């Protein structure tokens, strides 16, 4: 099964499960930014939740297929069209040779996922088909897709009966995000009133945002001192505060270590929401304890279990 990229849009990458076990040599996680939407797309085409998908960012994206195949689209796209006829998100559908698929731009949210009932025909790197853009590794030639790229997937025998995500499992997208966090190791480096402001501010996701992270615009925070701290581990979802007081939230392509105070950490259960943050969205941070955060995560997995089976989110 072969597809040809006609219009890649702002950024389209191949993403699957994150790279793991290599952060000690500086390898970022990468992987689908909204892993829940990516798992849901894979479910509709009979793939394992961590299989490769195309991650489409903000803009519309188009590709043509050269053979019959089954695909599904989830996430933020306003619409999906096949040869200018409307298709449905969260429902698998069959394509025939020559069909042109258009993934509409995101109206609310930021990223859409296209799953295919087949695996990429090339070998994964370091155990994953995800793209590590900084290193030019993995995914499709280690980069975002361009017009004219030809991607091959293994042939699939997925039955033609369409699958649909049950409505209770379709995530609600919005321009207002509640992200639950635990205190980071340097939370107490914030001045007393800034510790409150971190949670009372209505932050706005910055215009300069990428898979590496996004600035949080709002009343700046104050640090007790501006001394350089020894570089230490950071993760997707870590919120760092540089001396200028404008915090930034790290995304799936986050570097592995950083030297700015780590004031908070988005809990694992909420990290997939970062993938749908679009520039200008409102963000409210809510403090919780590590124990409570674990409970929330386990509950979320339990709720998803009937449809997605035993998965983990990243």
């Amino acid at each position, binding site marked *: 099964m072969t597809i040809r990229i006609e219009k890649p849009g702002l950024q389209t990458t191949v993403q699957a499960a994150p790279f793991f076990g290599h*952060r000690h040599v500086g390898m970022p996680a990468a992987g689908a930014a909204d892993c829940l939407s990516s798992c849901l797309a894979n479910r509709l085409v009979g793939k394992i939740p961590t299989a490769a998908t195309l991650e489409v960012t903000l803009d519309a994206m188009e590709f043509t297929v050269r053979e019959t195949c089954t695909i599904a689209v989830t996430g933020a796209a306003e619409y999906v069209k096949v040869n200018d006829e409307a298709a449905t998100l969260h429902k698998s559908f069959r394509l025939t040779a020559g069909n042109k698929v258009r993934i509409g731009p995101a109206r609310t949210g930021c990223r859409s996922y296209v799953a295919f009932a087949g695996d990429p025909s090339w070998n994964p790197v370091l155990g994953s088909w995800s793209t590590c853009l900084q290193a030019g590794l993995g995914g499709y030639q280690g980069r975002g897709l361009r017009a004219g790229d030809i991607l091959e997937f293994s042939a699939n025998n997925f039955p033609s009966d369409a699958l649909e995500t049950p409505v209770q499992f379709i995530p609600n997208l919005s321009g207002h995000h509640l992200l639950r966090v635990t205190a980071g190791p340097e939370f107490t480096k914030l001045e007393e009133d800034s510790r409150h402001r971190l949670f009372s501010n209505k932050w706005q996701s910055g215009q300069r945002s990428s898979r*590496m992270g996004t600035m949080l615009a709002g009343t700046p925070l104050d640090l007790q001192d501006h001394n350089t701290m*020894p*570089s*230490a*581990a950071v993760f997707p979802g870590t919120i760092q505060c540089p001396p200028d007081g404008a915090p930034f939230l790290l995304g799936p392509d986050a570097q592995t270590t950083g030297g700015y105070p780590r004031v908070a950490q988005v809990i*694992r259960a909420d990290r997939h929401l970062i993938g749908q943050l679009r520039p200008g969205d409102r963000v409210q941070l809510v403090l919780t304890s590590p*124990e409570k955060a674990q409970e929330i995560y386990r509950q979320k997995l339990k709720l998803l279990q009937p449809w997605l089976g035993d998965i983990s989110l990243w």
Partner: protein
Amino acid sequence: MTDVTADLHVCDDWISCKIKDLPHIHALVPFLLKAGTWLEVVPGLDSITVQFDSARISVKEAASVLREQISTGQETAISAPPAIELPICYDPEFAPDIHGVVSQTGHSVESFVAWHQGLDFSVSMLGFLPGFAYLRSTQDMGDVQRLEQPRQHVAAGSVGMIGNQNCLYSFSSPGGWPIIGRTPALLFDPGKTPPNLLQPDQPVRFRQIGREQYDDLVAGLP
């Protein structure tokens, strides 16, 4: 009952532990990786951080396992890898912050360049990005501070300097280190095993090359 989380920082799926001694950190990393408990083991300059599956391991359990592993972990003897000399070009285009750094270290540009090449470094840490290396010198290097606002784009090969550390940017990325030069060395090559040019504890020195030689070396890279 003793609090197992004392002097550790605990989030819902990672724990950070302060460890002052860098060789101890380097010895613990392979030990903790082999233990099989952790999804990730990330060394810092004065800390070690482990990430775990928070659906399977409770915060308390993870903290107590980590504490036990750190206290019982035998210090695996690691022999330092052979010394390496890295070419560096101080061309003004490659060294946007050299004047600020020079004034903070009390040098002229010429004496700074000569002085910088006389410094003995060792790799204190890999991280931040694949192949990105933190270098530490035992000599006093003054007190150069991190940039107030990070740059959106630092070129691959850039050499940064803060305090008594240098760093090597393996790929272009945002970054907050003042930049004093650039190396044409390929710091991360996914086709090689291991892909990293430098290893923890490896001794490193810099050797100046001119702009022409830099361009020639870069042209010869894959």
